[in-house]
């Protein structure tokens, strides 16, 4: 007979892998079960072991299905801590599943960042976290599945690099088909789900994703304003009212009934919203106004992806305090959110791709990557560096883009002359210079001029 918690040394059997695992220690617990560090032929891994009441035949079938199908394809799928195998113990009807071990020193939960236990991600890392989240959920949805429990509790991220891990994938199911024991957390549930007018689906996942992204950027719930503040008893009926029956976004441009109250609790949310780039604010407003009642108007993962890729390309460090700031092409300068100094606009690289134009702020140290030229191709998911903005070695204030690719760039200067720039050489950052990289035309645009 096997008891809970599993005793140290307990032997478990991985069904498909046909291997034996040994329990080293308990490392966590949740509502559905407990998580153990185990040792096996693959080294240290983890096992989620279900509680007796959760170890149902349906749950076992669901895990077996996930093991059979595997995670979504490619880099986007590798971020899911997917069930690797069904795990059983001799003499027990309970079961669990095997998964890879998470480096909890490197990866943080959002609550750990709030409590100052892990570093606060900068704007660039936030863009990367947000991009990777959207990218992975897009891959999951494209594979015909929905997650059904998107929340900050299932997300871990590297605050420095922005790399993401998505945990607790045992609730993943076939979109609009499979039954599930978990319907998510109220705070993240779409209004139609709370009103019991709909089942969990990719559309309800999109609402939860928007709430999660809002938490990541603003550190606040999008509906926690005057309405929540005025409830003396914040119970389930009150939550259903605020999240499901009459949700109003705290920054809704037209409905003002749920503004942030004048209370210190809301200072952080107000300050962080103020530094959100306008394009991000616009998508949040759409997600939490039109998208509430009309699921078809929710922001898709693709839209989030494109936004965060673009935002990341517009980040420049403040020359005075080094804080990261997002800067727009059509502004002569921005005020640093941290030290309030004026940051002059840098030149931009306008990239004209068949799928649409994009731009990259050319601050010192910025990398031009293969995804900027040909999205969706190349190694390392397009992250391969093919150019970098560098200072001129001897002329103060002068800069150029160094060719770090294997190919030779063709450069057309404003005076009409042309030149070839081989790997290792740099193109000066002169406005109106056009660089052709693998057939894609990129033009250096001058900074937006100051008003006279």
């Amino acid at each position, binding site marked *: 007979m096997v008891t809970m918690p599993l005793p140290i040394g307990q032997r478990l059997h991985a069904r498909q892998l046909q291997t034996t695992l040994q329990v080293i220690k308990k490392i966590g*617990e949740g509502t559905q079960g407990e998580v153990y560090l185990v040792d096996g032929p693959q080294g240290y891994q983890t096992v989620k072991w279900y509680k007796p009441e959760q170890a149902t035949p349906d749950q076992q079938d669901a895990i077996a299905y996930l093991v059979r199908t595997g995670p979504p394809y490619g880099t986007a799928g590798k971020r899911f801590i997917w069930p690797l195998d069904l795990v059983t113990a001799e003499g027990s009807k309970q079961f669990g599943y095997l998964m890879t071990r998470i480096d909890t020193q490197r990866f943080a939960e959002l609550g750990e960042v*709030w*409590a*100052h236990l892990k570093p606060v991600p900068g704007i660039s890392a936030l863009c990367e976290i947000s991009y990777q989240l959207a990218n992975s959920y897009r891959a999951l949805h494209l594979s015909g599945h929905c997650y059904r429990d998107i929340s900050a509790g299932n997300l871990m991220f590297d605050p420095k690099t922005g790399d993401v891990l998505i945990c607790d994938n045992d609730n993943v199911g076939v979109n609009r088909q499979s039954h599930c024991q978990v319907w998510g957390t109220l*705070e993240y549930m779409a209004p139609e789900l709370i009103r019991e007018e709909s089942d969990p689906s990719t559309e309800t996942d999109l609402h939860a994703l928007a709430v999660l992204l809002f938490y990541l950027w603003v550190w606040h719930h999008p509906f926690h304003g005057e309405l929540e503040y005025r409830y003396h008893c914040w119970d389930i009926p009150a939550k259903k009212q605020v999240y499901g029956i009459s949700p109003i976004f705290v920054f809704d441009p037209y409905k003002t009934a749920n503004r942030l109250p004048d209370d*210190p609790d809301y200072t*952080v949310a107000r300050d962080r919203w103020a530094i959100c780039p306008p394009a991000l604010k616009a998508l949040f407003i759409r997600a939490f106004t039109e998208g509430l009642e009309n699921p078809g108007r929710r922001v898709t993962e693709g839209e989030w992806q494109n936004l965060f890729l673009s935002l990341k390309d517009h980040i420049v460090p403040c020359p005075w305090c080094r804080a990261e700031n997002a800067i727009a092409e059509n502004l002569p300068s921005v005020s640093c959110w941290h030290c309030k100094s004026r940051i002059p606009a840098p030149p931009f690289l306008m990239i004209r791709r068949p799928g649409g134009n994009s731009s990259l702020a050319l601050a010192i140290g910025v990398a031009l990557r293969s995804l900027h030229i040909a999205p969706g191709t190349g190694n390392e998911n397009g992250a391969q560096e093919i150019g970098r903005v560098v200072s001129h070695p001897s002329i103060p204030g002068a800069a150029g883009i160094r060719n770090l690719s294997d190919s030779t760039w063709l450069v057309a200067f404003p005076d009409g002359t042309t030149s070839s720039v081989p790997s290792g050489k740099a193109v000066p950052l002169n406005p109106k210079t056009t660089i052709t990289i693998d057939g894609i035309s990129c033009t250096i645009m001058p900074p937006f001029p100051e008003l006279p």
Partner: protein
Amino acid sequence: MPSPEEFLCAADTGLGWAFGCSRTGASHVQAHKPCEDAYALWSGSAGAEPCIAFAVADGHGDPRHDLSRTGAALAVDAAISELVTFHRSYADCNIPRLQFRAGFKIDFPRLATRRWRELVLQDVHREDPFPDGRTPKAPEQVFTRYGTTLLAVLVVSDTILLAQIGDGDLILVRPGGTIEFPLPRDPVLAGNETHSLSSTDAHLLWRTATIDRDNGGVLLGATDGISDSFNGADSEEFSVFVHSLVDRITTYGVEAVAAAMGGWLDRFSAIASGDDMTLVWACIRPEEHPDTPASAGEGW
């Protein structure tokens, strides 16, 4: 200063017993300063669901936080009030445990912080703590004077909910003797400072955990004066103290330990940290499953 034999107790026969004891630190006695710690215990039920709640607070005590003694007392009031309200709001509905636990982590820090601020502002209006025309310019200045840490615990039928802002220790000793620290350690801040309920972003600074009641155990909530007397909560000496405390509870019974606790804390303060000392210990009975009823007198 109250007699060392004084302690408070709260109990629910199904869940267990909670005892608390608070002592003025030796250095405070010498300096004729009051104890700036506070604790509160509560037991009761809602919707036939029993619960035990306790809270421990440690007022910061330096001149910037000159009303922190009151701040600590208001903090334990706020915590118990919010824990009981939280329990009541979920006990009435047939809510999945996932929602219950997630709700605690998401809501309790915000609501407890808000409640504490309300109580502080009420106290300001009642006591006028800004005499001589020293009117504060912003509410933040008011809250700073009342600055305190806070530990809060709610024990219900199958779950133990824990929350903490600032330093102090929450330790669970399972019946087998395993010591668990359910919450991550408080980050080390410059100048021996700690996170405070008076911070502007206090609602974000909490650490929370929800754990299974399972086989129960002894759950300790202590201000940092105690672990500081043993070289910190990670030290072997502190582990020995925790185990010996649990052994004494098992051997002599909770009431005997409760009666002796004040004297022990006085001695620790006198020979070690000198700080105020507050300890709450909850002896949590094993969770009763319908198929495995606990026999009378078994466990704590």
